[in-house]
């Protein structure tokens, strides 16, 4: 796949953010992932060329970090937290139910290409456990039935919105562009804070 002049210009601006060009390797990997849906060999070759590195040096970085995928994932990539706290509170049951419901194993993609499933580590939302992420947006306080409804909505092409995130769920490619540092204009959407985030503040206002 050839990259357009516009895309090459975006990549050039990413490199210019840093005092030393090699630092741009991570945003560039997020960016090539946003174009193809995963980190392709072409993407790695291009980044190597742009940063004057060997392809092996770029591959070494791409394979170290779990968010960079070396094969296609679903349009909606679902992560179920199965680190201890979420697992105990229901994450294990949710993950088992989703594998069964979608007919995929860990890291699997549904045949229609809509949903992929992965068990993930702690995602810094423990006060909203059990937590499910989709394209790295928060779906808080999930249970088995709400998680099944969520993936069903994705397969129908009308995904439910995140609980703390933009008004609608963006695709995997669109989310990858945000992680590459591209402003999609949605920062103002959604809650500033969920209930648990505000619990202490609200109690303090009651004089506690």
């Amino acid at each position, binding site marked *: 796949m050839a990259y357009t002049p516009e895309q090459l210009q975006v990549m050039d601006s990413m490199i210019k953010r840093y*005092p*030393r060009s*090699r*630092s*741009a390797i*991570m945003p560039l*990997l*997020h960016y090539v992932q946003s174009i193809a849906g995963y980190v392709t060999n072409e993407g790695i070759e291009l980044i190597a060329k742009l940063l004057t590195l060997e392809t092996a040096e770029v591959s*070494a*970085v791409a394979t*170290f*970090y*779990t*968010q*960079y995928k070396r094969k296609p994932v679903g349009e909606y990539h679902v992560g179920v937290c199965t*680190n201890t*706290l979420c697992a*105990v*509170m*229901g994450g294990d*049951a949710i993950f088992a139910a989703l594998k069964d419901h979608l007919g995929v194993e860990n890291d699997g993609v549904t045949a229609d290409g809509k949903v992929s499933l992965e068990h993930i*580590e*702690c*995602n*810094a*939302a*423990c*006060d*909203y*456990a*059990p937590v499910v*992420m989709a394209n*790295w*947006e*928060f779906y808080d306080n999930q*249970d*088995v039935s709400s998680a099944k409804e969520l993936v069903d909505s994705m397969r129908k092409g009308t995904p439910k919105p995140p609980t703390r*995130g*933009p008004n609608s769920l963006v695709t995997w490619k669109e989310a990858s562009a*945000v*992680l590459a*540092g591209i*402003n999609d204009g*949605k*920062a*103002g959407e*959604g809650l*500033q*804070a*969920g*209930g*648990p*985030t*505000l*619990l*202490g*503040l609200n*109690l*303090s206002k009651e004089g*506690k």
Partner: protein
Amino acid sequence: MTKLAPVLSAHWDEKDSFTIEAYTRHGGYKASAKALAMDPDAVIQLVKDSGLRGRGGAGFPTGMKWGFIPQGDEKDHYLVVNADESEPGTCKDTPLLMANPHVLIEGCIIACHAIRAKHAFIYIRGEVTHVVRRVNQAIEDAYKAGHLGKGIDVVLHVGAGAYICGEETALLDSLEGFRGQPRLRPPFPAIAGLYARPTVVNNVESIASVPAIIANGAEWYQGMGTEKSKGTTLYSLSGHVNNPGQFEAPLGITLREILDLAGGVRTGHKLKFWTPGGSSTPLFTDEHLDVPLDYEGVSAAGSMLGTKALQIFDETTCVVRAVLRWTEFYKHESCGKCTPCREGTWWLVQILRDLENGVGTEADLAKLLDLCDNIMGRSFCALGDGATSPITSSIKYFRGEYLAHLTNGGCPFDPVKSTLFSGVNA
């Protein structure tokens, strides 16, 4: 009874709290204007006097860290903010940045001025798309408003899923474009950090605490907290409690007090074990409800304040299952650089799996402790040390429960009972 003291969280309940308008409405960017008019050394002294200590886990005095940066050396200096919040149980920086990213940016401006840096990098974990949006927008708006771009630049750098990058030297390697693996120290980052230049690496909450200290003074901050642990901080309560959430309180509040505020352990159940500061801090039990949650109090009781991530588990939870899962996490996240951690965590998982499945022997407990002894203090970085904490502390307090797995021929607990939806739709 310790009273809550929202400072960082004071305006999170306003719908637009994350915007520059809301931040400015509450006096935002006045502290940075005040600091920029001060001599940099005076800013460092003020932060030293406030008693602020690092909120990322280690508790090192923030002002002292800034003071280690060599001055007048003609080299570029850097500020790097560690927003790679990934320690299991830790969930304070993420809601802070979602609700008020500007306080971090203002803190960056003040810190850069103090350490004579022109560049700050915010290294945020990649698994939080909406938080990335908010911080990115805040940086753009701070440039438009002229707070950035006049001698101080802030760059947002998004990680890609590696717990080890929360370790400051691994973070620096990652930011330089390499695999995130820790560096040998010395030299410390203050001498040779990012691009081998003098660098301060601070946690989000530490830097976000600075604007209020500049605005209100060191004495005001010193007036909160305990003798050696000053100020307020975010305590994150999660797990088997009726009302989990964030509680900003003076350092030294106890779990008993926080549980009272949160409506207690989930109704009909009782506290079994908890972490004071994430999974890398040794477990506590119901014996520790009155331990003051400050750096000294938690340390004296045999654990660490860490990130103040209070994960609560009730009597339905199997401690062996909990510890096995954390250990699988450390094995997965071990970067592979050093042998004790890479090989040690792999063996810890094998042995713990056998124990959880009831096919181990009592000798395996001694083997686990022996392995921990060979990892602790012998690993390249704190990941290996952290991996041993839940194991050694759980064997100390719950040896009988490990043995019960052996006599029972498997786990004696029903995992459904520990879920939140037990009896509903599990």
